[in-house]
């Protein structure tokens, strides 16, 4: 684990209470070892609110129940409820740990949190509720082969030890190269060759990574700001369906 000075603040970002709640425990652990500050950002997704205006849209609960047609108003009320629940639960979780906590609400999307709510030195945790509690395959550290970040692996090791989950390292390689960055954690190489159609913009293809995560059921993902930006955090969350931890550098 990095020293306390390494993280200015631990930030939880999620679009609903259920997702944020899935991250509170790990956030408090990391905050206890770091600065002692936790900030939760509940993002009111504009896309969701817009979409709620469509007639055929229903919400399906985590338990598989159709809660019927929704409206922008009911969705707004749900955001209010979630904010209240998140405040209550976070305060309860931190009250005996000498942690400072705060909660704020933001409009936009999860991607916007990367820049709007963070500063260099923060640790950003995107929440996501898992499907079921068992059978998770490990803590996945995702880094670029071209620019490996050993501190990501250190953070992954810490979380892996705390949750007794195996540590897995995904090395994103370009041009079909094969790499390894640390002898004690064998790397899974996934190619992110640049798409032919997008050579001009050097847009890289993360389809392989997303397909991989879609099937692997990770417990947590630790990745870099750069990858989070390139892949889009919303896409990554949708594929992995687990919390994603991003140190802001």
């Amino acid at each position, binding site marked *: 684990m990095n020293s306390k000075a390494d993280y200015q603040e631990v930030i939880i970002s999620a*679009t*609903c*209470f*259920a*997702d944020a709640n899935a991250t509170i425990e790990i956030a408090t652990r990391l905050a206890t070892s770091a600065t002692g500050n936790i900030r939760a950002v509940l993002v009111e*997704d504009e*896309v*969701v609110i*817009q*979409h*709620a*205006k*469509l*007639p*055929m*849209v*229903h*919400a*399906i*609960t*985590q*338990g*598989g*129940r*159709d*809660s019927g047609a*929704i409206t922008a108003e*009911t*969705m707004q009320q*749900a*955001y209010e*409820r*979630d904010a209240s629940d998140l405040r209550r639960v976070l305060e309860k979780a931190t009250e005996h740990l000498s942690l400072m906590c705060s909660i704020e609400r933001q409009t936009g999307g999860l991607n916007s949190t990367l820049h709007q709510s963070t500063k260099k030195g923060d640790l950003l945790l995107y929440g*996501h509720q898992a*499907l*079921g*509690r*068992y*059978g*998770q*395959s490990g803590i996945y550290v995702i880094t670029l082969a071209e620019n490996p970040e050993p501190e990501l692996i250190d953070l992954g090791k810490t979380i892996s030890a705390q949750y007794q989950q195996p540590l897995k390292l995904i090395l994103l390689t370009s041009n079909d190269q094969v790499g390894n960055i640390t002898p004690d954690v064998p790397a899974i190489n996934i190619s992110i060759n640049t798409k032919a159609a997008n050579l001009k913009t050097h847009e890289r293809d993360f389809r392989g990574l997303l397909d991989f995560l*879609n*099937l*692997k*059921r990770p417990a947590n993902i630790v990745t870099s700001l750069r990858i989070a930006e390139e892949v889009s955090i919303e896409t990554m*969350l*949708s*594929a992995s*369906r687990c919390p994603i931890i991003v140190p802001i550098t």
Partner: protein
Amino acid sequence: MTDKVPTAIPLQPEQLCSRFDLEDGNLGKNIDRSGPSKLIGQDRAIEAIQLSARMSGNGFNAFVMGKPGHGRHQAVFDVLNEEAAKLPLPGDWVYTHNFTDSGKPVAMELPAGTAIKLKSAMELLVDDLANDIPAIFESDDYQNRRRAIEQEFGEKHEKEFAELMNEAQEKRLTLLRSPMGFIVAATIDGKPITPEQFGELSEQEKTDIEKAVEETQKKLERVLQNVPKSEKKRRLNVEKLNADMAKGGVDETIDQLLKEFGHIAKIKNYLETVRLDLIENAELFLEASPKASAGAFPVATTKRYLEPQFQRYLINTMISNDPDEKAGAPVITENLPTLGNLVGRIEHMSEKGTLVTNFSMIKPGALHKANGGYLVLDVRQVLSEPFAWETLKSCLQNKQISIISAHQRLNYLSTTTLEPDPIPLNLRVVLVGERKFYYLLSAYDADFASLFKIQVDFNDEVTTNDESVGMYVAKIQDIAASEQLRSVDAGAICRILSESSRLADDAEKLSLDVGQIRDILMEADYWAAAAKAKHITDQHIEKAITEAEIRASRPREHIQEAITRETLLIDTEGGVVGQINALSVHQIAKSRFSRPSRVTARVRMGKGKVVDIEREVELGGPLHSKGVLILSGYLATHFALDVPMSLWASIVFEQSYGGVDGDSASAAELICLLSALSGCPIDQSYSVTGSVNQHGQIQAIGGVNEKIEGFFDICVKKGLTGSQGVLIPIANVKHLALRSRVVDAVEQKKFSIIPIETIDQGIEILTGVPAGERNPSGSYPDNSINGMVEHRLREFAINLESFSKGLAKRIEADTEKGRSS
């Protein structure tokens, strides 16, 4: 003592007190000294206890009655211990956890000596499993198999969800997360469609999107609904794996126990139940593995069985009879027979503000401990403890011990409690108590007679003869030895025997109040020590007795002082008509003393009524009233039989403010009345005690020694004249055991004790006038007491008759006068 005592003649000093004359060489002669001295004069009681102890029928429990200090408890224990030694050692009793209903602990009878072994074995089993089971579950084998199960199920619904995501993408749909759950959204160029974009679509396109969204929503519902089902299946598989893994460890340890205890069917069944429960609840051993070493000792040696979650596998030993340590049946006594101490109790402990309990908190009572043997209880204590008597009877009637607390009976305790299996009861209860309890229970408790069929009645005294004296001597020596006192010489023993006869209130008997004899001996030993004597002598015994009397003499001295200062008016010389000294006895604890009371009688013409003033003011008890009515009958049937009884008389105990009962003053009251009627003064030098019947015979009374001594002490205070004395019933001569101060005074002719048989004898002594007998013509001599009484009564009758006639004439004259006017 059995010779005919002449009446109306003063007794000789040797008649006033039993004297024993034993030489040292004769002490203990013909006495079996091989063991402790036998109980004196209680053969009937001992045989009754033996009968109760030996009989096997229902309800032959014993009630031992008698006075305290007569050795009842010791005798009961001696007999019961002897009988218990002939009986087999009872089995052990344990309570175990009930694995199907924890509120009803299971009772189990085991062969003697097995309970402790089983208890230790179960503790060891828990310790072993507490080490073995975590090791099994930490093994790579278990971890791999468990991970495989979890991955299988985790991947299954992950795969379903991944497929759903792929299908959605193919239909140009995406899933959005919202506070209300998943939202299936259509996309355009990879981004969720906006309401504006949707509105611009053709109807067909809209329909297609709506259809795709609906289909995906349905599929999403199914996928999400499968998650809990899958979770449940996973949990069952993990539990099965846990059970399989635990079974290996559990089977090994249980099989070891079966080798040791398998031949006992009850234990075998119990261990099979434990085996199943251990396998089913193996996680108990995983939840609390030791976190730290126990100080200097390695963790493996810590007592894991003490941890609360393992208590269900332990043994609560209620009764343990190890044949290596005990033999025969138990003989138990319970000095505080509360309900809990009798039938056992269920303790509770506070846990997070709530009272909780379990089978290990069941504690045995005296009935458990005595089961298979004998239980000795003090009846007064049993009756004074709430619910104890009713519960004891219930246990004996039902032949089982059911543990029900007072709180449960009263519904006071609204918390978790237990209903343990009742334990079969097979014992003999011996109640020890005073006679009044036996009589009260017989009269008012319908169950008593059927539950306590054996009556054991201890004698209060024994007739004096060579055998009893010999046993008494042995007892005295035995007490001296057991209490480590100085040796008791012949004089001291004789003095104790005399005192014993006084305690028995009978010169021909010895008291069996061994407790009081022990007290005297111990105090005498103290005085012997103070005097630096080597032996206890008669002087030390005398000192002990005297000192005890002095310690209790404050009330007596207070009264004596009141008499000498003439606050209480008592004459001890001179003659007074219609006034006599009677005697009454006061008892405070074991101390008794007497005081003289002045009784006076006044007479006049009336309608044949003797007024008992004590009764009129409700200070007289029924026995006293009976005595007065008897003397009225004597008067009415002895004098002036040919005329109506025309007497009005009043009798009173002067200066008596605390009530009078008993008829021991009726002779004095009658003599007093005869004096009042005859006009002959009574010699106040005497005091009289004795009851009288309608024939004028004097009958025995109680407390004769104290009464004589009480009057003697007053005479001494007021000055002995040599003519003072006490008239006692002749029937009481055999009860005399007077203190030496009285005997010495009689010997010196300073005081006399005169036995009388009739009222006539008494009145002659007290007035110096012959009582008189009816002559052939049917009348008493004129100068006799009876003659004067009869004359007076006849005079009353004549006067009354003439008064009545005069009154009639006056009334007639007045009537005439009234008519003429």
